[in-house]
């Protein structure tokens, strides 16, 4: 947009960069993806003094322009490409006053790209407590920049920052370190060959793997300027040393720390939180709290949403002339939207906790505690939160994997989380267990039924861990992954940040996955309420002709059963019968399984409909009806022990949730992974159930 200033926010992680961004943009933020990759692209607009509009891009946190991850790559790709539409007019490097030395490394690199750069020193409110004092004019002159001393926590200094941004033209573009001092010989040759390019820029091109879309890269490759990886690293090391020499020199005068004043909260907290025993105990407690919140605290709002959806459905049915559209709206669209909205409480609670953990700095300690356990499975220490949350619901859990920086670890986490026993499986488990497991107590205390349930939970975890282990072996790791995790200072989470984060995640789910879920719900509605030929549409007459006279309720149930049987879904269920017979299932179970793709808990309701008791809600009635169902071919009970176990295992391992597939698609930016989940998990479930039934029958 002509007339607006393009600003890039850059900085180390944990410098409060997000808070600064939030201060500048408020609710005017947009989150998307960089094309083709799964890195979040955060932009926003803000009003600057003098009726100037600012477009701010919040670049992923990075420690240096030498990228070691996809996130960091994004930064360097943008800053080296003047033709990119996001290329900034001015850069604001956000630093933490307590970590100035290291933060300035990135600053000096950006200065060397000759982009007008402002140094924002954040967390100024902590200077007193830590005994830090700064000579701003000295720093400004040595670093060739203008400094804004801000506190995103208190909200001070933001106005000054905006002033500096608006006056960006007066910023010097002198570099801090002259790149040629890294290796004078080499760089002189470079300068002669490419006299019109920034030396430092050329250097970055040579030493990075990134794809810049600039022609020079191909010219440089295969010339005498390319070096081996090892040589490059040595030069990069030299560059780092030279930069730190410069920084130390500047800070020796520009920064004074009175250590007698400094109070070290971090050390004291770390002693407890990373303790051999207490560390884990506390972590376990926090995990249980998170689980508790997504499981039970969400119940009330979820119940309200369910009622609201049902009410809305009935309202539509009551106020519209009966017909296809009213049916679609009530049972397809509203049910579909309800199916999306109902996830909001769980997502909100989960991200509330995750935000608090990340903002406070505790999450890094989680990584420290869990890394050794998670690494053999290709998972990150941070994978624990999604895995545990998956026991409530996989959808928010998969979204939670977003804070895992390493893409491979994140992918594996996303793919295996659905194995954990989610709450939608519980209605299926409970009714099947009550049918096939006797009510006896082991040793007079342990209920056999309860133990079976626990065993199923355990199976879920084992399934997740095992598949992670397998994926770890087969997914190729492009480069050896090094582990360097910063342990930031502990901070009181800023509620504004937490709130904005929760809002953003919720919006992302509702608009992203929500659209897909809604579309799929409409399709499923169609398949369930239409059938080929006349059978479906003439259901009522056919049923009346077939049976003895029924009262209105019985007639409704019978019609519903007949229609389901002859709908497309019913036909699908019957078609797969030969395939599922070896697992011990008949076509009626087949229909219920197919319907479960909308949502697992639909299994029970679908069976009820097929058994002509669709209008009842009574669990006991449904159970008794299932218990009395006899298979015409074998003459035995349909829900016998072998079939029951086989079904339990099938539901434990099969991928049967369109919402999960939708969110996996969104988080991995591709259909490849959800499809792999669908076919892989279902194939595995099939085999396991098959073996179980054949062994037990």
């Amino acid at each position, binding site marked *: 947009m002509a007339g607006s200033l393009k600003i890039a926010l850059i900085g180390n992680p944990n410098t409060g960069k997000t808070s600064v961004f939030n201060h500048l943009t408020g609710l005017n933020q947009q989150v998307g993806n960089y094309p083709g990759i799964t890195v979040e692209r955060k932009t926003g607009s803000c009003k600057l003094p003098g009726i100037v509009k600012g477009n701010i891009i919040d670049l992923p946190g990075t420690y240096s322009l030498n990228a070691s991850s996809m996130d960091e790559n994004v930064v360097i790709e943008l800053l080296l490409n003047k033709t990119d539409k996001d290329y900034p007019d001015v850069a604001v490097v956000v630093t933490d006053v307590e970590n100035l030395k290291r933060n300035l490394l990135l600053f000096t690199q950006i200065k060397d790209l000759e982009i007008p750069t402002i140094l924002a020193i954040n967390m100024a409110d902590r200077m007193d407590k830590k005994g830090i004092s700064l000579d701003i004019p000295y720093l400004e002159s040595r670093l060739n920049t203008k400094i804004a001393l801000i506190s995103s926590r208190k909200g001070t200094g933001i106005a000054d920052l905006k002033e500096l941004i608006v006056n960006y033209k007066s910023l010097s573009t002198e570099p801090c370190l002259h790149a040629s001092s890294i290796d004078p010989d080499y760089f002189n040759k470079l300068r002669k060959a490419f006299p019109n390019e920034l030396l430092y820029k050329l250097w970055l091109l040579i030493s990075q793997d990134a794809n810049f879309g600039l022609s020079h890269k191909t010219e440089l490759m295969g010339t005498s300027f390319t070096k081996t990886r090892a040589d490059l690293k040595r030069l990069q090391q030299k560059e780092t040393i030279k930069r730190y020499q410069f920084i130390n020199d500047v800070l020796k005068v520009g920064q004074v720390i009175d250590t007698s004043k400094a109070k070290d909260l971090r050390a004291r907290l770390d002693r407890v939180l990373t303790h051999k025993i207490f560390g884990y105990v506390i972590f376990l407690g926090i995990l249980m709290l998170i689980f508790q919140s997504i499981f039970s605290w969400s119940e009330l709002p979820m119940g309200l949403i369910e009622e609201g959806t049902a009410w809305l459905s009935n309202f539509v049915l009551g106020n519209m002339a009966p017909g296809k*559209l*009213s049916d679609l709206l009530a049972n397809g669209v509203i049910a579909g939207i309800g199916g999306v909205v109902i996830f909001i409480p769980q997502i909100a609670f989960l991200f509330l906790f995750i935000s608090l953990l990340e903002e406070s700095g505790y999450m890094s300690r989680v990584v420290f505690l869990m890394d050794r356990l998670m690494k053999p499975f290709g998972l990150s220490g941070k994978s624990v939160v999604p895995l545990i949350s998956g026991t409530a619901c996989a959808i928010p859990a998969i979204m939670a994997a977003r804070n895992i920086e390493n893409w491979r670890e994140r992918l594996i986490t996303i793919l295996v989380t659905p194995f954990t026993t989610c709450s939608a499986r519980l209605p299926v488990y409970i009714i099947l267990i009550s049918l096939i497991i006797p009510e006896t107590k082991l040793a007079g205390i342990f209920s056999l039924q309860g133990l079976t349930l626990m065993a199923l939970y355990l199976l879920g975890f084992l399934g997740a861990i095992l598949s992670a282990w397998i994926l770890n072996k087969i997914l190729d790791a492009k480069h050896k992954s090094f582990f360097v995790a910063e342990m930031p200072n502990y901070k009181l989470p800023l509620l504004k940040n937490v709130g904005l984060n929760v809002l953003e995640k919720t919006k992302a789910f509702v608009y992203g996955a929500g659209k897909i879920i809604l579309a799929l719900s409409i399709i499923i509605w169609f398949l369930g309420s239409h059938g080929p030929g006349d059978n479906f549409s003439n259901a009522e007459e056919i049923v009346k002709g077939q049976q003895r006279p029924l009262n209105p309720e019985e007639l409704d149930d019978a019609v519903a059963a007949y229609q389901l049987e002859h709908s497309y879904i019913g036909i699908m269920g019957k078609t797969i019968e030969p395939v599922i017979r070896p697992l011990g299932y008949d076509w009626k179970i087949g229909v219920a399984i197919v319907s479960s793709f909308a949502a697992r808990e639909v299994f029970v309701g679908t069976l009820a409909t097929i058994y002509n008791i669709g209008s009842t809600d009574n669990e006991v009635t449904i159970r008794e009806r299932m218990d009395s169902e006899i298979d015409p071919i074998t003459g035995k009970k349909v829900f016998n022990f072998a079939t029951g176990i086989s079904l339990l295992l099938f539901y434990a391992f099969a991928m049967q949730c369109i919402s999960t597939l939708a969110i996996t698609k969104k988080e991995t930016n591709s259909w490849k992974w959800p499809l792999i989940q669908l076919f892989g998990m279902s194939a595995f479930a099939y085999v396991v159930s098959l073996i179980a039934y054949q062994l037990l029958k």
Partner: protein
Amino acid sequence: MDIQSIIAYILVAGAAAFLVKKIFFKKKKKKDCGDCGCN
């Protein structure tokens, strides 16, 4: 077919088209950025 059914079927077709578009449109946008030299 009455008007209700017509509208209903249009919506269903729309949902199907949306999903098909989502599956195939994505492939065009995706650069081969899986090998960005990361991790």
